[in-house]
């Protein structure tokens, strides 16, 4: 038997060389299910029940008293109608749009520019590493430190930022960072300080792993640096940059802690995002019914976005041979 086996192997030398990802190992059918079972069950237990609970209460007039006494009644979709019709919600959507444009999107663009600048124009490896580490440290901070630190730095009367800008002669008088109209910008500044490093790191590593042979060829053909950037680097980094966008966008819908710590949505609700209202109404004021309606609306919006993004990611990962 043994010699015959060896013979058949030599007949098909590619048997060893080809990567055969599709061919599964031979195991009992229950093994994969058992392996996946425990993690999936854990997630189901801690995610599905709360989601269903939230949906149930979004259809009821639950408040803190009703919740503990068990006295709440079905009121159909009027919570949703209230939320969608309220000025507070519509304002918060505008704030979200502002945050998505100048927070999330601009962060990815700045991160991309910084990463490519660092890679193309800084030639020393040691300097690159030091700069990268410096720029990424803010990302290692928890939101409570970031919020507290920026509230401290931006204190209007004796904050460090105002004082530094005064000393440099850039402003004449203190900027009131936490007034209506500016407070959301302050949050966006703090958030950018915190998170620009994410797109930066991703794009930088993407650039590092591009094949040098392509650039060699471009150099031989005499292409200018600008052309190489536009025709080769950016197209090849398209997917990587898209992933950075995806991550920042999904984070934007989770964004609540900095708002809570820095301004508590104020003054006069001028820096509230939808997620913050859901948090405020649900956790601080226990208007569970209304908060649940907010939560479900946010949930549906992010479900749509996440589905689209995951579809895109599937394509990317297939192309790269992962899935």
């Amino acid at each position, binding site marked *: 038997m043994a010699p015959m086996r060896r013979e058949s192997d030599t007949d098909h030398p590619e048997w060893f060389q080809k990567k055969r990802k599709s061919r*599964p*190992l031979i*195991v009992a*059918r229950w*093994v*994969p*299910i058992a*392996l*996946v079972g425990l*993690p*999936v069950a*854990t997630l189901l237990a801690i*995610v599905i029940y*709360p*989601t269903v609970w*939230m949906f149930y209460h979004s259809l009821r007039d639950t408040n803190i008293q009703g919740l503990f006494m068990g006295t709440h009644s079905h009121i159909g979709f009027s919570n949703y109608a209230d939320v969608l019709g309220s000025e507070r919600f519509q304002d918060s959507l505008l704030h979200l749009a502002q945050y998505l444009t100048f927070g999330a999107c601009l962060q990815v663009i*700045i991160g991309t*520019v*910084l990463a490519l600048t660092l890679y193309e*124009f800084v030639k020393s490896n040691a300097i690159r590493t030091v*700069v990268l*580490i*410096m720029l*990424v*440290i*803010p990302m*290692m901070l928890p*939101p*409570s*430190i970031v919020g*507290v630190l920026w509230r*401290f*730095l931006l204190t209007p009367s*004796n904050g*460090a930022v105002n*004082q*530094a800008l005064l000393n440099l002669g850039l402003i004449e008088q203190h900027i009131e960072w936490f007034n209506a109209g500016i407070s959301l910008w302050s949050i966006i500044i703090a958030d950018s300080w915190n998170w620009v490093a994410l797109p930066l*790191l*991703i794009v930088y*590593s993407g650039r590092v*792993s591009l094949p040098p042979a392509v650039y060699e060829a471009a150099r031989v053909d005499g*292409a*200018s640096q600008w052309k190489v950037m536009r025709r080769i680097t950016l197209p090849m980094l398209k997917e990587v940059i898209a*992933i950075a966008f995806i991550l920042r966008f*999904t984070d934007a819908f*989770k964004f*609540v*802690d900095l708002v809570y710590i820095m301004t508590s949505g104020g003054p006069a609700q001028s820096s509230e995002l939808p*997620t913050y209202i859901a*948090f405020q109404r649900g956790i601080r004021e226990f208007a569970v019914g209304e908060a649940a309606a907010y*939560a479900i609306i*946010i*949930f549906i919006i992010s479900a749509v976005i*996440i*589905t689209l993004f*995951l579809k895109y*990611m*599937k394509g990317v*990962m297939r192309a790269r041979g*992962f899935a």
Partner: protein
Amino acid sequence: MNHATGAMTAGGTERTQDAWRHVRYLFLAFLGLWIVFTVFPLYFMTITAFKSAAEANLTVPTFWPQEWQPRNFIGVFDERTNFNALVDSFVIASANTALSLFLGSLAGYAFARFPRQAGGENLAFWILSNRMFPPVAILVPMFFLFDNTPWGTDSHLSLIILYLVFNLPLATWLMMVFFRDAPVEIEEAAYLDGWTPLRAFFKVTLPLVIPGMISVAMLCWIFAWNEYLFANLFVGTAVRTYTIVIPTFTHGSQTLWNFQMAFSLLALIPPVTLFILLRRYMVRGLSLGVVKG
């Protein structure tokens, strides 16, 4: 290519490269500005940690301490609760990391080796989507869910389990990517040699993914260590994570900025050290395995 066009291209290249040189300084200046913007808060945080309480609250802030007070770093721990908070955070982060890694490796291995039998792509992506969903959507019921457990909300165990919401998807997904990179042929060869599946796994595949596993562990640990939103809802008197303690450094109406910043700096040491050690793997983890670091 004939001679004339070759020369023209070369001339054009020279001119654009000249223009490029000026653009380069513009970009470098922007990079420099951003470095200043990034470092300034960190710098101010550090010097504030060394200031006296009075100096930290001056009307005109000083950018260099008039008098260095390194005692702040010991002074913060005069209150036992501050030290306990670091311990609580450490216990929760470490236990959660171990649990995420164990469960994540199980699922990750199944998805990598038996994609179809383990539920396929859709299940894998469903697990990942749990990480992306906004946690506010499930905060309130989470409280009641854990309030009904025998250990209650104000305990290490609740937070350890709760943090699985964001760390288990990450661990599963990344372990899937790492297991996929470990060649299946070696494992098959071990089977053919008559090894049991368990032995083949522990002796052959596991050593190949250990580096990946370590990086996943560090990443999960950092996320659990820095978590704020869930902790804010759950902590009571028995368990307080350090992220919750940081905004509470007040004395009457005055904020003790120097203590707050000193405590923050100490709490920063572990994640920053981990990052410097694992920066190679960091990118892979943060981009969910799409970008190879």
